[in-house]
C-alpha cells in the first residue's frame, strides 16, 4: 500500500501552517509596536513637571498632570471599596454556599454584566449619583468603575476558592471548626495570593477606563478636594488632550499614555506571574 502523501497535500499543509503562524506574529507585533511607540514617544515627553505640576490654562505651554494622577487614585479607591468587597463576598457565596440553580443564574448575570459596555455603566452612574447630587463628582466616577469591577471580582474569587483542595475544608470541619471559620481561616488564606493578584488585574482593567468617567467624574484643571467634586483622571486627560488642537497638549497626552500603559502592564505582568507560580495553578 502506498503510504506517501501527495506533494499537493504536503504543500497545502506547509502553507496553511505557516499562514497561521504569520497571523500570530502579526498580532503580537501590534503589541510590540504599541509598546515601542509609546516608550519612544511618551518617555521623551515625560518630565518631572508631569508628576508635580498642575495643568496650565489653555494657550500656555508646560504644566503637568499631578491633579489627574491623584484624581485617578481617588476614583480607583472608591471603585475598589465598592466593587471588591461586593464581588469578593458574592464569589465566596458562589464557591462555598450556593446551590445549583441560583449559582447558574448568578454566574450568567455576572457574565452579562461583564459584557455591558462601559459607557452604559456611565449612564447609570450618572442617573443614580450625578443627577440626585446635582453635580459631577469623584464619587460618581468611583461608583461607575466599582460596578465594572464586580464581575471579575466575583469570577476570580469563585475560581480561586474552588481551586483549594476539598481535603483542607474537610480537615478544618473535622477539627470542629464551623463552616464560616473554615472558609475565612482556612480556605481563603490558602487562595490568598491568587485572590490578591486577581483583584490587582481587576483594578488594572478599570484604571484605563475612560468612557464612564466622561460624564461622572468629568474633570477639571486643579486639585479637587474630597470626593464630592468633579475630578480629573489620567484617561480622561489623555482623551481631552489628544483631541485638542495644541501640539504641546499632544505631547502631554503621549506622556500620560506612557504612564498609564506602564502602570497597567506592570500590574498585569506581576499579577499574572504570581498566579502562574501560585499553588492554585496546579489544578489547571
Amino acid at each position, binding site marked *: 500500500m502506498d503510504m506517501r*502523501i501527495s506533494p499537493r497535500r504536503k504543500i*497545502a*499543509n506547509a502553507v496553511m*501552517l505557516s499562514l*497561521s*503562524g504569520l*497571523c*500570530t506574529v502579526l*498580532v*503580537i507585533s501590534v*503589541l510590540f509596536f*504599541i509598546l515601542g*511607540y*509609546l516608550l519612544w514617544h511618551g518617555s521623551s515627553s515625560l518630565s518631572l513637571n508631569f508628576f508635580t505640576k498642575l495643568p496650565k490654562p489653555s494657550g500656555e505651554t508646560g504644566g503637568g498632570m499631578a491633579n489627574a494622577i491623584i484624581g485617578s487614585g481617588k476614583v480607583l479607591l472608591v471603585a475598589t471599596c465598592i466593587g471588591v*468587597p461586593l*464581588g469578593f*463576598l*458574592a464569589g*465566596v*457565596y458562589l464557591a462555598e*454556599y450556593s446551590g445549583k440553580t441560583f449559582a447558574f443564574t*448568578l454566574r450568567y448575570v*455576572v*457574565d*452579562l*454584566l461583564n*459584557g*455591558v*459596555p*462601559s*459607557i*452604559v455603566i456611565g*449612564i*447609570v452612574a450618572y442617573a*443614580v449619583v450625578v443627577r440626585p447630587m446635582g453635580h459631577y463628582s469623584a464619587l460618581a466616577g468611583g461608583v461607575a468603575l466599582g*460596578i465594572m469591577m464586580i464581575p471579575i471580582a466575583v469570577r476570580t474569587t469563585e475560581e480561586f476558592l474552588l481551586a483549594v483542595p476539598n481535603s483542607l475544608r474537610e480537615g478544618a470541619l473535622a477539627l470542629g471548626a*464551623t463552616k*464560616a*471559620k473554615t*472558609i*475565612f481561616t482556612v480556605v481563603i488564606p490558602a487562595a490568598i495570593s491568587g485572590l490578591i493578584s486577581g483583584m490587582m488585574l481587576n483594578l488594572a482593567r478599570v*484604571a*484605563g*477606563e*475612560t*468612557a464612564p468617567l*466622561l460624564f461622572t467624574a*468629568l474633570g477639571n484643571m486643579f486639585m479637587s478636594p474630597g470626593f464630592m467634586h468633579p475630578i480629573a483622571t489620567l*484617561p480622561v486627560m*489623555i*482623551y481631552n488632550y*489628544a*483631541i485638542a488642537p495644541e501640539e504641546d497638549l499632544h505631547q502631554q497626552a*503621549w506622556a500620560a*499614555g506612557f504612564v*498609564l*500603559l506602564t502602570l*497597567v*502592564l506592570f500590574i498585569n505582568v506581576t499579577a*499574572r506571574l504570581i498566579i502562574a507560580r501560585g499553588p492554585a495553578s496546579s489544578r489547571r
Partner: protein
Amino acid sequence: MAGSTYVPSASRPTASSFYKRLRGGDEVAYLLTFACAVAILVIVGLIVVELWTNSQPTVKQFGLGFLWSSRWDPNGGHFGALPFVYGTCVTAFLALLIAVPLGVAAAIFLAEMAPPRLSNILTFLIELLAAVPSVIYGLIGIFVLVPIIRDYLVPVLTRLFGYLPIFSGDFYGVSFLSAGLVLSVMVVPFIISVSREVLLAVPVDQREASLALGTTKWETTWQVVIPNAKTGIIGSIFLALARALGETMAVTMVIGNTPKITPSLLSPGYSIAAVIANEFAEASGNLYVSSLIFLGLVLFGLTIVINALARILVLTTSRRRS
C-alpha cells in the same frame, strides 16, 4: 429563609440553636455573602430600570420611529438613532471582517501548532494586548494609524477599487475605515484567547485517530478539530462582536463624529457609543439627554442579546467535552 436553605446537620435547627449559630458567626457569614450575591442581581436590575425610566421622554415623543429616523438635530429638537446604529454596525462588521480570520488562524497556531511553552508565552502577550486601555488605542489611532491609512492604504484602495461605492469620496483621515481597523486590533485578542481554549478542549484522541488515518496536520485541524470546536469559535466571534459594538473611546477618537449615513467607508461617521461619549456631558434639555440614554438602552439590549448567545454557544461546546 437562610435557616431553611442551609442546614448543616441532619436535624432541622430549633430557634435557640439558630441564634447560637448566629452568634458563632456561622450564619452571619452565610447571610452576608448571600446578601452580596443578591445585591449584584439588584444592581443589574437597577441598570435596566434606570435606562428604561430615563429614556421614557424620548420613547413617548418619537416611539419606535426613533430607531428609523436619520435626522439628528439637537438644536431643532429632533432626534433619530439611525446614523448611529448604522455606524456602529458598519464599524463592528468591518472589525470582524479583519479580526475573525486573523484571530482564528492565530488560535489554530497557538492550540495546534506551537509547542506548549511557546504557546503559553504568546498567549500571555496576547492577553497583555487585551489589557491595553481603549484610550491608548485611540491615541495610537489618531496620531499613527490615521496618517498611515491616509498616506499608504487609501491611495492604493482608491486606485484599485475606487469605482466601488464603498471606497468613493474624499478621505480626511477620520472615517468608518479607521474606526473599523482600530476596532479589529482591539477585539482580536478576545477571539484568539476564547478560540484557543475551545480548540484545546477538543479531545486528543480525535486528532490521533485522524492522523493515524494518514492525514496531514492541517487536514486534521481543518476537517476534525475545527468542526468539533465550531460552536465555541462562533461563540468567540459573538463575544468579539459585542465588544466591538460597545467599544467607545478608540472609536470616538477616529470615527469623525458626523451623524451621516453614506455607503463610503472613507467618509466620517458616528457610532452609538461615540455619540453618548461626545454629547452627554454637554447635552441640554430633557429630551436630548433622554435620547442619548435611549441610545444607551439600545446598545445595552444589543450587547446583552449577543453576549447571552455567545455564552450559550461557548458553554455548550465546553460542556459536551466534560
